[in-house]
């Protein structure tokens, strides 16, 4: 079974600065997807970014970018120019391509606090 580990329970960053969240996963699969979701205080889960394992190019979405290291099974999220609205829980997730039911496996989350 796949596991996803987020080793940083909590991080804080000053507004306008950069913060990097780590995520590692354990799998024997070669084809899979990785995701970062954001959960603000409203608790709505919002997709931040998605990466397909077969793509070597790191995904970016505005101020959010990932560093995908397939051999190391690492998928970190960088938030640049942090804004107060970035304060949230961030969850890393894994899905094996073709998995029954397209089930995601989530990490335990990292709480990010952006300070003014």
């Amino acid at each position: 079974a796949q596991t996803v580990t987020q080793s940083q329970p909590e991080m804080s960053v000053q507004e306008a600065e950069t913060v990097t969240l780590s995520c590692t996963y354990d799998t024997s699969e070669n084809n899979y997807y990785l995701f970062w979701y954001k959960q603000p205080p409203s608790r709505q889960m919002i997709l931040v970014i998605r990466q397909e394992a077969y793509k070597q190019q790191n995904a970016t979405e505005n101020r959010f970018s990932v560093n995908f290291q397939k051999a190391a099974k690492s998928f970190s999220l960088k938030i640049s120019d942090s804004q107060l609205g970035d304060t949230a829980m961030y969850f890393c997730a894994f899905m094996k391509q073709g998995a029954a039911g397209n089930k995601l496996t989530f990490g335990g989350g990292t709480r990010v606090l952006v300070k003014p």
Partner: protein
Amino acid sequence: SQTIHQWPATLVQPVGSPLSLECTVEGTSNPNLYWYRQAAGRGLQLLFYSVGIGQISSEVPQNLSASRPQDRQFILSSKKLLLSDSGFYLCAWWRQGKNIQYFGAGTRLSVL
């Protein structure tokens, strides 16, 4: 466009009472549907998923059950709630092609 609705947003129930949480998806057909539970400050635990009408897969043994009476409707139920059933429940659906899972707004359940 596709949307997911989940209700109620908040629910307070006494121990031993029944439960019914409902989730519907609009703008798509035959989606994969999911129920998750999230304890305070914790990650998401997949409870059930469904790949079609009447098809339910349970991920963890528990006091809850799920049903899918219609293509875009997913219901989470219990006959008798326990204190340990308290938590935040999220419904989600899988969008084929985009390969993304989208979530509802969640239900905060307190069992007292």
